[in-house]
């Protein structure tokens, strides 16, 4: 009985997430709805295994949880770079060079000229890093 209730609640929630996935104005709304739908699928698989007295469904649920996470990250990366492989070259050089330069500029700027140069260096840091990392 309680399994059926939980399954019904999860199915209702999945339908509502689908509504957002179809209606969502931006791409990120759709990605969010898809990720939420996947999480609910994991729960529904587990509950369905209990409903039918076949807990082997939990293996599928476990696999689905991992694939869902990897798929979300892969979709986000694809829509940022339009490819899944070439972005590794972009990620390689600036991401490791950036924190060192930031740290030295902050250490040099703080005692002599107040907080302004250090703050400027920190402000340019996250934006360029965000462009490389996302």
């Amino acid at each position, binding site marked *: 009985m*309680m*399994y059926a*209730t*939980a399954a019904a*609640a*999860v199915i*209702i*929630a*999945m*339908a*509502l*997430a689908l*509504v*957002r996935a179809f209606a969502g104005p*931006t*791409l*990120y*709304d759709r*990605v*969010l*709805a898809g*990720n*939420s739908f996947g*999480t*609910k699928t*994991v*729960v529904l698989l*587990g*509950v369905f295994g*209990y409903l039918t007295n076949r*807990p082997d469904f*939990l*293996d599928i*649920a*476990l696999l689905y*949880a*991992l694939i*869902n*996470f990897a798929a*979300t*990250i892969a979709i*986000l990366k694809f*829509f*940022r770079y339009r490819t899944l492989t070439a972005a590794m070259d972009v990620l390689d050089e600036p991401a490791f060079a950036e924190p060192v330069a930031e740290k030295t500029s902050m250490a040099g700027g703080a005692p002599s000229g107040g907080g302004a140069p250090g703050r400027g260096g920190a402000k340019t840091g996250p934006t360029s890093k*965000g*462009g490389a990392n*996302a």
Partner: protein
Amino acid sequence: MLEFVRDALSIILFGLGAIAIVTGAIGIVRFPDFYTRLHAAGVTDTAGAELIVFGMMLQAPSWLVFAKLAFISFFLFMTSPVATHAVAHAAWVGGVRPMLGESLERGDVE
């Protein structure tokens, strides 16, 4: 006696989880802004899924099923906030801005 306590706890967990998941889904549909929708989805998905999995763990017929459920719970607990943060960060970098101010102007998409 022990059976009764176990069933009662598990019914409570299932009920709380179902409420969390359904309210989160309503929030995904009804909220005005991407970031508020993200909040509804992220928080209630993590909490609701974990609560339902905990409820199933209480009813597990064997230790193997219990261990599988524990793994599912662990992975959901680790990956769900990371995925939510990744979506939020990608949206921010991609130019989606939240609604701000008392009149809730539409955040501009650059």
